[in-house]
Each structure stands twice: as structure tokens, then as C-alpha cells.
């Protein structure tokens, strides 16, 4: 046992001028600060995207409503989708990966700290570019407008003829720029995990969070390229008169769909695999048991990674592909349910017979398990092409993927926020408010997204700005909107809880959960250098070994 900390020239942080402290944040290359920047940036856009969703829900609360015009409604769903996918969930996942991976693998920083900062600022610039379209899309002549082509921007709607001005270009460039940022971060995550593990941490002894983020980074490398290529083609079409997606010159609108979804479906797994990672860290700690079936969990994740590259055209059953293509994508899509099911059983088996602590992070993980299961089941329903022909482009689809993203990913994210908040800030959140937020959120979520399936089954198409009364959709839409407002209140409580606890919460100490991975060995918040002495590990739960020298894990692994 050697020194616990490295003496740094201590400056009283509070006494320095605000400008200096902000300057430190802007120029930082520290993985923890960049992680927090990513997370704050994503939280900001979460509020923006949430407001856009609320505008849409208010418009749809009753038939023939005229809260916003059809044009504004189109901009709202385009900006909502683009913002939530590219500027909320991706950055928040990168933020957690940035913050946690070096701490969990016993390293002092990411492999390329400056590339890390560069990637963050590229992503941030992408988000600003997207929203600059609100003023700049008409070239600053008058009131601009935001992109209105939908988040997957099908051709030929994006051609110059149908999309005048620059709104589509802002969309294209924003995704291109943030895509480069994502590739940079993915390279960094992958390299850090492969090259910076502390002595003894073989691949089979890494925390699952590191494993799952490794797969996520690999998927980013494979999936962002097609999006980048498609955006370059779209730029060439719009500015140099190329004909990639121009059907009048022999080009194909369908090939845009293929290129977009070759990116788009792996993207879903880029978002959900880090959510799996959070659940895989939180469930064992709050069940007081080691993760059940670690090697199977890793294998299932890698299998999901591979399978996710082969399922993209299930977004296109209604386009009219050959029956061979339909059959292939039906089967590959159904096959992905197998490794996902294995994961669900692994989490259940981890909880089985454990001494479960029902604190807020665990509550959110349990909600994740139920909701993600239902989302997966509607996914299997949609994967059958004939079923999809009936319900494609309906509110049933909208309900399905929001079940994945809100019920699955966002719930796991809330769990992660509560679980690592003490580590990031050194203070404990308020448990009562956390539980209140949990129950409100679950109530709001189910009001919105359970009932959203029904107008879909009754034939309500997605992306319509209003509807006729008397089709049996009215009451369902009212309930859905009320649920959205309940979720809004719950998110306000969440933000309030974190803000209040950041300054007034109880001191957390370095290991408030009696957890087992390396990030809990450093102080909360961790010092700049993370570990004074680079740790050495012998098992997947190094802190267990330390706390229980009489019965260490490495005897059994």
C-alpha cells in the first residue's frame, strides 16, 4: 500500500474568478470534465427536444386543433427526432462512457485526450448548426425555418425542387459534423479499452460496462460511415447537380432509404447497448450478487452487434421489396430477439435470490426490464412483414420505438444518473424526490405510450398534424397528451433534485453503494489523475476482493 493521493498545487477553486474557471472548462482535455460537458449538453437538448414533443402533443390533444400550423408541425417532428437521437442520447451515452471508462479500467485518462475534446466540440458545433437553421436557413434574409423533411429525410423530399432554401442543408451538415465527432469518440473509447487497462484486467475481467461500450464503439465505426456517405451524396445532389437520388435522371429514391437505414438500425443499438451497460452495472450491486452469466452476456452483446448490421430493411417492408428480401429481413430481425432475450434472463437471474435494495437506481432498472421487454415484444410483432404492412407508418410504430427509447433507454439513463451522481459530484441525491420522480415518470410513461398503440391499431398514421373527429382516436390522443405532461413534471423534479443535491446534498463518500468496480476506489469526485497508484486487479469485482480477502472472487473465476 503506497500513497493515497498526489500532492497538487492546491488553489482554492471557489476563490478564482468565474472567467478563469469557465476558461478551464472550455479548454479542458480531462475525460471527466468532457464527460460532464457531454452530459450537460445532452440535458440542454433534452429540454429542447422535450418542448418540441410537447408542442406536437398539444396540437394533437383534440381533433381540428390549430395550436401550430402544419408547416410548424413538420419542423417540430423533424427537429424532435434529429435532436433526441443525435444531440441527446448519443452525447449523453458518450458522456457516461467518457466519464466512467477510464475510471473503471484503472486508467488516468482516455487514450487521446485532445481528440476527445475535439470530438466533443465537433458534436457541440453540430447541434448549434442544426438550431442555427431557425435563423439562418433562408440565408438570413428574413425569418428562417427549421428542417421539415423528417428525421430520416426520404428522397425526393430533400431535392432542391421540394426543399427550397437551406433548411435541409443545415440538417445535412449538422449530422455530417456531429458524425465526425462520433467517429472520433468511438475511436477513443475503443482504443482506451483495448490499450489502457490496468495490470491484471484481461478482457474477460473487464466490467461489463467497458465490454458493452467496446461493442458500441465498434458499431459507431461501422454505422456512421454510411450516414456520412449518404449525407455527402445528398450535398452533391443539392449543390453540384448530381443524380444519386434523382429519379428523373435514373437515380433511386429507395437507395437513400437503404443507405439511411444501414446507419439507422445499428444506431438503435448504439443507443441501447450503453443502456444495457448501465443496467448490467446497477442490477448486481443492488441485488448484492455478482452478475449472472458474464461470458454469455458478452457473447450476446457481440451477437447483437453483428446481427444489428443485417436487419436494416425491416424499416422498409412497406416500400415493396422482393419476397426473398422480405423473408431475409424478417428472419434476421426475429433472430436478434434471441440474444436480447438472453440478456433479459441474465438480469432476472442476477436478481433471483439476491437481497434486492429498492433504491431509485434499482427501481429505474426494474422499470427498464419490464418496459424494454414489452418494447421488444412489439418489435417482434412489427418484424413480421405482413403485420408491418398493416401498421407501418402508424402510431403503433411511434409507440413501439418510443417504448424502446423512453421506456428502455431513458429509464436506464435515469438509473445511471442516480447511481453515479454521488461519484460525479461527491454528494447524495434526495432519495424521496428520486422515488417520487420514478413513480411519476412511470405513470406518465405508461399513460402516453401504452395508449399510443391503440390509435395506431385504429389506423392513425404518424406525422399528421391533425385529424377528423369521430374516428375513435380523440380520447386516446387526449390521454397520450396528459401522460406527456406528467412526464414533463417528473423531469422537472429530476432536474430540480440534481441541482439541489449538487449544492445541498449529503456528502456521499467514495463508495456509497458498497459497490465493486474500480471507480468507487477513488474519492468522489475523483481527483484529476484518477488513481494515485495504478491499481492491479485479479477478478471482475476488485473491490469485493479488497473487502473480502477471506473469500475473493478470483478463486472462482
Amino acid at each position: 500500500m503506497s500513497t493515497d493521493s498526489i500532492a497538487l498545487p492546491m488553489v482554492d477553486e471557489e476563490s478564482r474568478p468565474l472567467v478563469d474557471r469557465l476558461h478551464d472548462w472550455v479548454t479542458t482535455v480531462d475525460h471527466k470534465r468532457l464527460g460532464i460537458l457531454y452530459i450537460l449538453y445532452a440535458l440542454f437538448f433534452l429540454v429542447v427536444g422535450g418542448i418540441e414533443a410537447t408542442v406536437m402533443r398539444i396540437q394533437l390533444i383534440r381533433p381540428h386543433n390549430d395550436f401550430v400550423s402544419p408547416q410548424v408541425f413538420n419542423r417540430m417532428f423533424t427537429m424532435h427526432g434529429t435532436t433526441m437521437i443525435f444531440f441527446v442520447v448519443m452525447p449523453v451515452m458518450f458522456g457516461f462512457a467518457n466519464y466512467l471508462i477510464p475510471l473503471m479500467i484503472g486508467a488516468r485518462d482516455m487514450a487521446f485526450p485532445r481528440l476527445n475534446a475535439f470530438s466533443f466540440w465537433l458534436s457541440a458545433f453540430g447541434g448549434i448548426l442544426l438550431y442555427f437553421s431557425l435563423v439562418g436557413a433562408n440565408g438570413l434574409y428574413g425569418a428562417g425555418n427549421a428542417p421539415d423533411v423528417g428525421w430520416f429525410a426520404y428522397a425526393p423530399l430533400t431535392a432542391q425542387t421540394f426543399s427550397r432554401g437551406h433548411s435541409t442543408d443545415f440538417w445535412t451538415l449538422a449530422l455530417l459534423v456531429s458524425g465526425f465527432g462520433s467517429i472520433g469518440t468511438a475511436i477513443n473509447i475503443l482504443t482506451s479499452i483495448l490499450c489502457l487497462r490496468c495490470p491484471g484486467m484481461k478482457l474477460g475481467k473487464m466490467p461489463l460496462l467497458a465490454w458493452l461500450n467496446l461493442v458500441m464503439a465498434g458499431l459507431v465505426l461501422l454505422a456512421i460511415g454510411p450516414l456520412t456517405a449518404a449525407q455527402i451524396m445528398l450535398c452533391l445532389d443539392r449543390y453540384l447537380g448530381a443524380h444519386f437520388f434523382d429519379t428523373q435522371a435514373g437515380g433511386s429514391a429507395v437507395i437513400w432509404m437503404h443507405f439511411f437505414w444501414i446507419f439507422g438500425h445499428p444506431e438503435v443499438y448504439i443507443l441501447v447497448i450503453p443502456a444495457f451497460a448501465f443496467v448490467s452495472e446497477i442490477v448486481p450491486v443492488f441485488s448484492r450478487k455478482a452478475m449472472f452469466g458474464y461470458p454469455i452476456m458478452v457473447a450476446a452483446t457481440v451477437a447483437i452487434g453483428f446481427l444489428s448490421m443485417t436487419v436494416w430493411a425491416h424499416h422498409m417492408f412497406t416500400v415493396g421489396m422482393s419476397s426473398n428480401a422480405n423473408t431475409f429481413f424478417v428472419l434476421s430481425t426475429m433472430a436478434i430477439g434471441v440474444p436480447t432475450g438472453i440478456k433479459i434472463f441474465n438480469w432476472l437471474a442476477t436478481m433471483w435470490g439476491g437481497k434486492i435494495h429498492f433504491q431509485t437506481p434499482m427501481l429505474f432498472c426494474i422499470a427498464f426490464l419490464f418496459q424494454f421487454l414489452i418494447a421488444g415484444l412489439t418489435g417482434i410483432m412489427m418484424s413480421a412483414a405482413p403485420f408491418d404492412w398493416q401498421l407501418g407508418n402508424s402510431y403503433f410504430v411511434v409507440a413501439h420505438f418510443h417504448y424502446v427509447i423512453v421506456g428502455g433507454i431513458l429509464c436506464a439513463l435515469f438509473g445511471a444518473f442516480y447511481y453515479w451522481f454521488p461519484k460525479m459530484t461527491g454528494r447524495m441525491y434526495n432519495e424521496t424526490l428520486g422515488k417520487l420522480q420514478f413513480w411519476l415518470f412511470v405513470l406518465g410513461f405508461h399513460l402516453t405510450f401504452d395508449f399510443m398503440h391503440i390509435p395506431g391499431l385504429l389506423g392513425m398514421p404518424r406525422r399528421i398534424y391533425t385529424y377528423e373527429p369521430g374516428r375513435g382516436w380523440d380520447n386516446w390522443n387526449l390521454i397520450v397528451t396528459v401522460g406527456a405532461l406528467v412526464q414533463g413534471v417528473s423531469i422537472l423534479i429530476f432536474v430540480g433534485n440534481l441541482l439541489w443535491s449538487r449544492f445541498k446534498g449529503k456528502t456521499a463518500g467514495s463508495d456509497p453503494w458498497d459497490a465493486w468496480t474500480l471507480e468507487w476506489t477513488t474519492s468522489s469526485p475523483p481527483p484529476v489523475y484518477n488513481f494515485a497508484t495504478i491499481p492491479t486487479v485479479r477478478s471482475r469485482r476488485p473491490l469485493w476482493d479488497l473487502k473480502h480477502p477471506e473469500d475473493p472472487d478470483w478463486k472462482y473465476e
Partner: protein
Amino acid sequence: MSATPITMRQPELKWGLPSRGHVAMFALIIAESAIFVIFVVAYLFYLGKSLTGPTPKQVLEVPIFYTICLLSSSLTIHFSVQALRRGNVATFKAWWFATIVLGAAFLYGTAHEWYRLIYHDGLTISTNLFGTTYYSLVGLHGFHVIVGLICLSAVMAFTLLGDVQQKHAYRIDVLSIYWHFVDAVWVVVFTVVYIIGR
């Protein structure tokens, strides 16, 4: 600032990890390959679907000489890195310069071909689908050659200033992998555009 240092006694723990430069460069190459794959697929998908001429058969000539230039630059850069590993900076400099010359020659070949296609054959990116896919695929590759040449020239400048020594061989090696990648992509582009496409 209290922390619990963890050091588990482990007799004969042998610990080696892959080098981060190589891993990161291979990761970048995977991401770049994904971009190229989409452009190659688009090229193959639109083969023969142009509604008007000119067609590849009418206007494309196989650039054998410039292809040999680019491919042999992989050899010269390999010799160059090997020389630096042995600490022979003068040989390194000569082979490195040869690589830049070969790369620049290839780029000249592309420029010449494009000039001929545009001014004599009237083929631009907006003429037909062949023009669209040809200029974007070859152009994307050419863009990578330009980026590679900028990096190579930067190293050349540092070498002339006397700042590149044996200890930098590792970094130079990582850069050379990128150049090999650019060459390998040309093999694919060449096959698709000049062999299958004609």
C-alpha cells in the same frame, strides 16, 4: 482526498497491451472503409443505368502508369519506415521523398484524366449517373490522397528541419498505415471503375 489504492499481489503477472497508435489507426480505417463501401455500392448499383451518354466504355482509359505509381509508393514508404527504425535518417528522407513524388504523380494523373473527361468528353458530375458516381467515388479517393500527401509533406518538412529521429519511427509507422490504406482503396476503386465498370 482519500482513496483506497488497490494492489493485488500477483506473482508473475505478465502485462502487455496493444499499442494505441495502431489500434486507433485501424479503427479509423474501419470507419473510412464503411464510407467507401457505400460509394462503391452506389457505383455498382448505378452501372449501366445512365439515361444518356457518355458511357464508361466510350470515355474511360485505364490509368495503368499512375496506378503503378500509387501502388509502388506503398513499397517506398515501407522502405522509408524501415530505414528510420534502423536510425538511418538520410535513407528515410530519400524514400519518403520518393513516396511524395509518386503520390503527387498519381494525383496529377487523376487531374489530367478529369480535365480530359470534362473538356473533351463533356462528362461532368451532373451529366448522367455515370458522371455522378464516377466523380464522387474517384474524388473521394483523391481527397484521401490529398490528405495523405499533406501529412507526408508535414513529416518531410520536419525531417528537413532535422526534427525527425529514430525515436519517432513508431509515429511515422502509424502514418504509413494510413498511406497503405489509401493505396489499398485504390485497388478496389480501380477494379470497380476500370475493370468491372468497363
